[in-house]
């Protein structure tokens, strides 16, 4: 199989303006990925399928990269009025400040491609959404590879990525009026009275909260 660098150059030659980046994979497996820009994804996918003969989409999945709070030390130069030798002057001062900012996370769709015609693979391609809240759209690769149909529905169900151009984007595994996207890292499970005889941590806290509620209700009922 060609290396990811060769494939990247071939794609850039064939589909001009396709923003393709190489994402190196530090593990031993050596399965490096190509990150595609959503705008040209369908054109790149069609090129991969028809010219490079990656005709078999094996796996399509989503990954959640949540927002990260980043603490960094930044050197800030400010003009400050200071008294020097009894005279007020404007002096430039360089101070190190600790700043906290939230690096916005995103949702990512990862596709593993193989070639049945040439016995090659895997080629990993990825696409990232803008953020996790309102820019969650990506183009659907179902028109190119039919096997993405159910898998993209599952990514929509569990992560919340909306695939434009998908012939039938509904929830796959959860019921239709379910509101959350459970595979996200910040999903909180519903409190459904999980019972354990040796409760600890979260379950113990919830059980104590239930008990407090029940006692309060009992007291009210007795008092009323």
């Amino acid at each position, binding site marked *: 199989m060609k290396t990811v660098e060769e494939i990247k150059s071939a794609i850039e030659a064939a589909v001009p303006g396709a923003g393709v980046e190489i994402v190196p994979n530090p*593990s*031993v497996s050596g399965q490096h990925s190509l990150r595609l820009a959503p705008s040209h994804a369908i054109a790149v996918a069609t090129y991969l399928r028809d010219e490079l003969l990656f*005709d*078999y989409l094996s796996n399509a999945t989503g990954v959640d990269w949540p927002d990260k709070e980043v603490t960094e030390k930044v050197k800030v130069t400010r003009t400050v009025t200071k008294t020097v030798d009894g005279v007020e002057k404007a002096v430039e001062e360089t101070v190190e400040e600790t700043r906290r900012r939230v690096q916005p996370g995103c949702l990512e769709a990862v596709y593993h491609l193989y070639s*049945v015609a040439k016995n090659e693979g895997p080629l990993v391609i990825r696409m990232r959404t803008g953020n996790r809240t309102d820019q969650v759209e990506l183009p659907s690769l179902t028109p190119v590879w039919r*096997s993405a149909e*159910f898998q993209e529905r599952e990514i929509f169900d569990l992560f919340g990525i909306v695939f434009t151009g998908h012939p039938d984007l509904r929830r796959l595994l959860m019921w239709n009026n379910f509101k959350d996207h459970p595979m996200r890292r910040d999903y909180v499970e519903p409190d459904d009275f999980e019972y354990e005889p040796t409760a600890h941590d979260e379950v113990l806290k919830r059980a104590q909260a239930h008990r407090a509620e029940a006692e309060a209700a009992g007291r009210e009922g007795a008092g009323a």
Partner: protein
Amino acid sequence: MSGSGFVQAKDKPEGWNRPPVMEPDGEGELLEVAMGPHHPSTHGVFRMDVALDGERVIRLKPVFGYLHRNHEKLGEGMSYLGSMPFTDRLDYICPITNNWAYALAVEKLTGQEVPERAEYLRVILGELTRFQNHASSIGFLIQEMGASGTPLMYAFREREKILDLFEALTGARMMVNYMRFGGCRVDASAAWMDAARKVVAALPGFVDEMDRLLSTNEILMARTQGIGILRPELAVNAGVTGPMLRASGVNYDIRKVDGYGIYNRFNFRVPLGDHWDVYDRYMIRLLEMRESIGILEQALKDIPAGPVMDPKAKLRGFRPKPGEAYGRIEAPKGELGFYLISDGGPNPYRYRIRPPSLINLTVLEDMALGENVADVVLIFGSVDIVLGEVDR
């Protein structure tokens, strides 16, 4: 190569890989039936919303999720080894191959080596699993045809013998939890090897019996030949793998293509289908049972002595370096793959199972449109799915 000669996708018209929109002929309304989730023939809790024009299927939409046990979310909360018993419960008829796929993916991530004896044991148990899976699958298919359980009884008779072997080796009939990253959990004694050889020696007789009773049975042939045709180019584009892909004439067996483990040491053929119908899928499974017996005989003869676990394998404090890997095997149902992203911690950051059964079901609608509703059950049975894998 896979010399199937199918035309590549770029010469096809737009929308070629979508199911055709069927129009009802005749008057009257469409009858919408929900087949499942409680149904005697749906291999578990699975629902198909079919719209019928008389007896012909006009539209079929599968509904999943009735067995969604959030395995992937659990995997993020558990250590790598802690997920191993859960992989048993994916495709619960073949726990060994599920374990193997997961162990392979982790070994790809970390670069661990597997000792030779462990590889041979993996092959022996894997092929035994494949044999009993295909036997059960044929049994279930014929039962859905109305044979009231007799082929299934025969298949389960052989399955019980194989499960006895599993129990003697691993301690459990079904949920074996046998593979580890870098080898196998326990070694097989010489007595077990002899018992395995005896079981394998009796298997060809069983396959001959099934063949003699079923393959030329006129009811089977009338009901399955020409039903549920899947064209090879659609099969490849839809990600279909396993016996279903090979019954559509595409020569793609991951044991040959990837050559994972030590499969390139064994001499075995890959049967392919010519007519792409339900009968071909039945026949492919029967022929693969014979090939499995061949591999088993070779493996049982050649298995060397040695350790079954990589001595450098770290059991406690197993933290693979950051990175990702996708490992796949030829499970009896298709390509079972695990995609793992590690962030350097003891739990995986992303734990994804590529389920062959779910992706093989992508083409259920295409195969069933235009067929009679009684044949939908057969077509569905020939896909050979397990709901634990579809819904995870």
